[in-house]
């Protein structure tokens, strides 16, 4: 089955827990490409599932990865987007698809294409500004085209040694490295805010009836505040982008275990989705996992 088929096929039934299991393989042999200079490259995996309780998939996912080989080759770059739509009827899937596409178009046109230039100039907006503009454009488009619809959106642009993140809502970006999984985005949910203030324990937050209420989302209209920041990419580590259908259902420790013990990011993503469905699959599940070599 091709890589693309695996991402975009809807999974309607839960695979049995003792279904296909691959025996662990030697990490060097599976998909970790090495070039002539001994440089390793980014490897990615991605998986989606409608989950068990939902009938539609309102999550959207986008992946763009560029890899160059050779002595004077430019560094790898990538654009990854996860969006979790909301709003009745078909508003959710339309809102998430429109915003993902708007952001992808904006970043590719104003950011990615410029990477290929031989000389950098200051009259182009810096990456953080491009990211902010892209999410603001998506916000406006959803407001204009999908009344009553909204979506979360988490974007990661990988460039050389740095990851730049644009984020609104409660989908998440994790950095998994050194046997530790850490959320690097902030959930824009009321419940997370109350938890930060010590008004709720993590357990109360997880069970709170309003745990899905957000105070920021793409499509909310004027004055949208987007979180934008840049962090170095982890060496011999991972970046995981996922919707709350994954992190809200599979505890962080299990996410860490699944990712750290897998041999390939694709296997890890499939396993993460399986785990979320095994725990009841109450929501749509989306995960994209990026591995950064030691280099």
């Amino acid at each position, binding site marked *: 089955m091709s890589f693309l088929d695996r991402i975009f096929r809807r999974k309607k039934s839960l695979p049995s827990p003792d279904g296909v299991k691959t025996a662990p393989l030697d990490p060097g042999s599976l998909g970790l490409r090495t070039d002539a200079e001994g440089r390793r490259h980014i490897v990615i995996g991605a998986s989606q599932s409608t989950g068990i309780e939902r009938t539609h998939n309102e999550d959207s996912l986008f992946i763009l990865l560029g890899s160059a080989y050779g002595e004077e080759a430019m560094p790898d770059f990538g654009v990854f987007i996860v969006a979790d739509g909301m709003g009745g009827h078909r508003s959710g899937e339309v809102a998430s698809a429109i915003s993902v596409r708007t952001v992808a178009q904006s970043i590719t046109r104003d950011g990615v294409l410029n990477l290929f230039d031989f000389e*950098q100039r200051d009259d182009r907006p810096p990456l953080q500004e491009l990211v902010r503009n892209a999410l603001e454009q998506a916000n406006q488009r959803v407001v204009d085209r999908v009344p009553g619809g909204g979506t979360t959106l988490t974007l990661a642009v990988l460039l050389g040694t740095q990851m730049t993140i644009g984020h609104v809502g409660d989908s998440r970006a994790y950095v998994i490295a050194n046997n530790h999984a850490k959320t690097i985005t902030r959930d824009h949910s009321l419940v997370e805010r109350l938890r930060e203030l010590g008004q709720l324990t993590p357990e109360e937050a997880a069970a709170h009836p309003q745990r899905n209420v957000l*105070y920021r989302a793409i499509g909310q209209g004027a004055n949208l505040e987007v979180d934008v920041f840049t962090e170095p990419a982890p060496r011999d580590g991972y970046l995981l982008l996922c919707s709350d259908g994954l992190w809200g259902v599979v505890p962080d420790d299990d996410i860490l275990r699944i990712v750290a013990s897998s041999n390939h990011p694709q296997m890890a993503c499939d396993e993460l989705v399986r785990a979320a469905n095994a725990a009841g699959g109450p929501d749509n599940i989306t995960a994209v996992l990026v591995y950064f070599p030691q280099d």
Partner: protein
Amino acid sequence: MRRTTRALDSKGGETGALGQLQAGVTLQDRYLVLGVLGHGGMSSVYKGRDLHFPNVTKLVAVKEMTNMAADQTMYEMIVRNFEREADLLATLSHAAIPRIYDYFTHESNSYLVMEFIEGKDLEAILREADEPIAEDQAISWAVELCDVLMYLHNHQPQPVVFRDLKPSNIMVDHHGHIRLIDFGIARVFQPGQKGTMIGTEGYSPPEQYRGEASPVGDVYALGATLHHLLTKRDPRGEPPFSFSERPIREINPKVSGELEAVVDAALKYDPKDRFPSIESMKQALMAAAKKTGILISAQAATVISPRNEVQELWSFECEDEIRGSPTVHEGLVYIGCYDNNLYALNAKTGEFVWKYPTEGGIVSRPAAEEDMVFVGSEDERLHAVTASRGKLIWTYFADGPVRSSLTLSDGHVFFGADDGHLHVLNMLSGRRAWRAEANGPVRTTPLIGHERVYYGCESGDFYCVDFRGELKWRFRAKRAITSSPIMVEGIIYFGSMDWTLYALEGEGGWQLWRFRMGRPVISTPTYAEGKIFIGCADGNIYAIDARASRESWRFQTDHQVTGSPIIHNDSVYCGSVDGNMYCLDMRSGRKRWNFTTGGPITGTPALADNRIFFGSTDHRVYALLA
């Protein structure tokens, strides 16, 4: 108009589009719609005229509520709530509460006809103001608000909790008096559904999200409104309940400590920690008002232990201005002077040890390794002398004055010259290993990292070359780059005379972010605890969060800051053209002390053994206790 918060639920957009009443429409054969006053989440307010008074223009405000509930039970519940609240309003009588004249339902909308208030709401007033509201005005409004809230809380048989206090619900009429204009009839809040999103109002207390509404909730909301008035920072643009992250006096130092304390007490997370009633808050406000006008010492609220005197350990006088920066190496301070000499002084005592004459002024910072000291001079040479005695070892001729400072790495000396080149020499022999080109004089200190050399030049170009001198990438700023670059976790930072601090990704030179300041930047940045510190010719020393490229704080000096800051423990040390060396708290930017010299300070201090060393254009080299 008012900011629109959207409730996103399944019915959005399909029924009851907002603002559909056009001017000229008459409701109930009585109320002629003249225009729209504003929109809220589920309501609109129109200006209207009561046609039952044909001889005069009796103006009214007509509030239309559109019920967008999908579910029948929910729908009926909302209608009942609306009616109950309309009944309540009809029984209220207070100068600050608009009178209700009529109430009716027509098709799927309900309408409330009220007294029309001429004036502006606080949200509009804040938006149009250039600065935060003055303290005495804010207190005067707050006291009036307390009066009407006390009336509501003491209402019989049931206390009325306003629950929706915020600037857009508070009007100031033409006499300058407060009027409350929205009794929360239009509820934006629809809890419980997955996928429901609300724009949080920002003024509501935490317990409201647990469904608890009590009079102390209004205390919080009044505190939140006051915070916005006094800081001009809209809480809806910030994470909820984060007022403590924006202390009022840090944003608006004109506010008195007493008033800040009243607002802080009103904004406590736990309702039990706030004022127990609006009445007690009013008393606290009145007490603070009596004290307004008394000057409060700026140091009173700080947590930092201020030091009133800073100890000068020694100073040494040279024969001309010191514009460059010192280096400390094995107990000696080396510094160049405009009198053409390189000086070596004892770091502990300031005693003169030796001086070495060049034939031009020295702005370059010397570099030292083992028993060698290197310095560039405007005499177009790089000089290498012994560290202990100042005896000449070799000189190297460039084709222009050497104003850049030096970097030593791997047995080589790296520096730029006004001849438009980066020069790389063998440290021991002084022989040139290679050189790289630039489009203009190179005055920045070259940065070495990951087998690359980074340097900027006066044409605005910034270069990354490898150890053979081959260009890897180039970036162009709009004006000269005199500030030297630093690299932290793969990102290069430097300032330019085009007023900007740049952050470039080191491998490819891609611009990650930039931060604009008020004037040219000559200062070299420094980094600590996630922040970049840099000076600017606009007179400020800035601290910028490196991750999200946001200003953390800025400290204003009395003249340009062209020297560069350094960090030691949790202090920032930086000199200014105003003649002072400043010591600031790294996290808050508050001044710990300043030391005044007789002339501008344009160099960067050096730090060793808990002492800081720097020169001034008053001809002196100073050593202070850090």
